[in-house]
């Protein structure tokens, strides 16, 4: 589903290479996790895949179901089925959460040549999905993420994911800032979306999240590369011993 081959990325502004040849394939129906030290390039990978400005791809490729992602505008990538739950969701004063969600859902439908969702249908679906994430009516009415707590912002990301029903979901540290109960809610939200047509790439620092969202494959990213790939036991190893052993072993 998601196929990343030898992806090399530098900052557009300065001559600094951040991703130094990333290889990664996420199959439909699978959950892959990426762990790795701070600054290793995990968020950069997620931004480059979703099309953020400021990065220059100097080599390699990335495709979603065979479609070259790097050629597409961010909105086209979204319409193609890519979704990124941001590590730091953005506050947008003046744009209501509901308006935002509905605009996004219908823009994607339009781009795919599907019929737009009626206001009534949208309202029904959004209320139902918000409820399972314990997002109340007030949060739906407020401007996007403005004044939301860290955990509320993350739950709002998952609500967007649930509404947009993407094929490929990238979650960048969605667990950070969540209390134990919220972590459960968010994981349940993610698990509810798991099905054989959908792939997940879950970036996290902690095994705890992976207790709830059981990964099929775990990758370790360090210094702009995937340095080790294994099963769920790899996450346990990181949890217990940190990265020192793994990094020493691959150095």
């Amino acid at each position, binding site marked *: 589903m998601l196929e990343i081959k030898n992806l090399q990325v530098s900052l557009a502004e300065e001559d600094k290479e951040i991703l130094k040849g990333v290889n990664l394939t996420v199959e439909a129906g699978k959950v892959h996790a990426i762990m790795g030290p701070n600054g290793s390039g995990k968020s950069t990978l997620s931004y480059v895949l*979703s*099309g*953020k*400005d400021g990065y220059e791809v100097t080599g390699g490729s990335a495709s979603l179901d065979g479609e070259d992602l790097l050629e597409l*505008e*961010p*909105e086209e*990538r*979204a*319409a193609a089925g890519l979704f*990124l739950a*941001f590590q730091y*969701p*953005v*506050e*947008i*004063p*003046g*744009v209501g959460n509901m*308006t*935002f969600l509905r*605009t*996004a*859902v219908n*823009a*994607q439908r339009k*781009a795919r040549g599907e019929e737009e969702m009626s206001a009534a249908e949208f309202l029904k679906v959004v209320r139902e999905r918000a409820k399972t994430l314990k997002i109340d009516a007030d949060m739906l009415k407020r*401007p*996007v993420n403005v004044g939301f707590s860290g955990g509320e912002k993350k739950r709002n990301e998952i609500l*967007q994911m649930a509404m*947009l029903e993407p094929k490929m979901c990238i979650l960048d540290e969605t667990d950070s800032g969540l209390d134990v109960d919220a972590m459960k809610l968010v994981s349940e939200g993610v698990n509810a979306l798991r099905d054989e047509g959908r792939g997940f790439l879950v970036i996290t620092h902690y095994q705890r999240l992976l207790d709830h969202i059981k990964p099929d494959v775990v990758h370790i990213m360090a210094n702009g590369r995937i340095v080790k790939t294994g099963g769920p036991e790899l996450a346990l190893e990181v949890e217990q011993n940190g990265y020192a052993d793994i990094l020493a072993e691959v150095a």
Partner: protein
Amino acid sequence: MGIAETRISQLQDRVVGLSVPASAWNAENRTAAVERLQSMGLPAPRDEYWRFTDPKSLNAIEAPKAALFDPKETDVFDTVDRLEIVFVDGVFDAVASDDLSGSNMTIERLSDAEGHDSHWAADCYGALEAIGQTPVQRPFAALNTAYATDGVLIRVTGKVEKPVNITYRHANDTSDAILHHVIKLEEGAELTLLENGPAAARFNKSCEVFVADRAAFHHVRTQGRDHERRAVTYIFADLGTESVFKSFTLTANGALTRNECVLRLNGDDATAHVAGASVGDGDFHHDDTVFITHDAVGCESRQVFKKVLRNGATGVFQGKILVKPDAQKTDGYQISQSLLLDADSQFLAKPELEIYADDVACSHGSTSGAIDEEALFYLCSRGVPKDQATDLLTLAFLAEAVDEIESDTLSDLIVEKLEGWLERHRP
């Protein structure tokens, strides 16, 4: 010739084609305005409040030509149940207008009223304009009081349910219109005034509003979409105890717009809100010049002005809050912001506070900024196309001004208008 002589000789040329309408009760007011105007002369670019806006095209003897944009465009308040008054190039259109009658108010044309021997407006016409000439001179307002050819006189005695809507049509590309309205709200009265339309190639409009104790005046206007039109408009208002004054203006397009608003809060606990959203693309110069005087205890005033500028458009804001020594517990707020959609556009702001009372809370701020790239990417990453995402963020920027409109029906209509404009003016 010295500066003073130049102004005076320019003025003589400027008014040569204008005449003061005859009227028994209004002659004195008109003559006094002529004298005020003679003593000031026309504004010059070096005058303190004309530095950012060149008065040349307003000073010109003839109105610069302005092509008609779309005479068939339905007005923004079309769907609102209202009392309709239509002026075409400043000339009253009896056929297009409703009967000038309504419960809890009398409403007349100025030119009709001036034929009567006496009139309630005798004490009102030009009165607020005359006071409003100090400390800042406003020559075009005096010119308006002196030479206005028509207008409406509205006296409101109770709550008027149906808004009064004045549509200003523009049909002649060299028209030069001068209209003067007087609105008097008696104690506890309520009125909503709507205005829309480009009016004329060059339009000078003045509106004097007397808001008595506990009366409420709501005003929502849009200034028509003709690109080449020029307008200088004035609102002068006096506010009584616990009265409410709220005015919102949407300006889309126009080669030159200068909107002046001069408010005096004279009764305790009065509220005055003035807001404006203006959007310009290319040859667009928009100037909001506001002067609010707090002269009573416990009054609140808000100025909220937002401008979206692209392709070399210019926005100007000159706003002053003057708090007199006895105006304790004043709450004054002023914000003026521009969203510059490219590097060619500019925003010039002159916010001023002058405070002589000690127990007041006044704040003001002025900013200029671009679209927030982080927010834009966030929206696009959810599948919203960049153009549409930019429009959403632009509307969000304008929202604080539009939210000043109390009626949801009216603010929805304004938002719709803005959405249409933004969609037509994408890069």
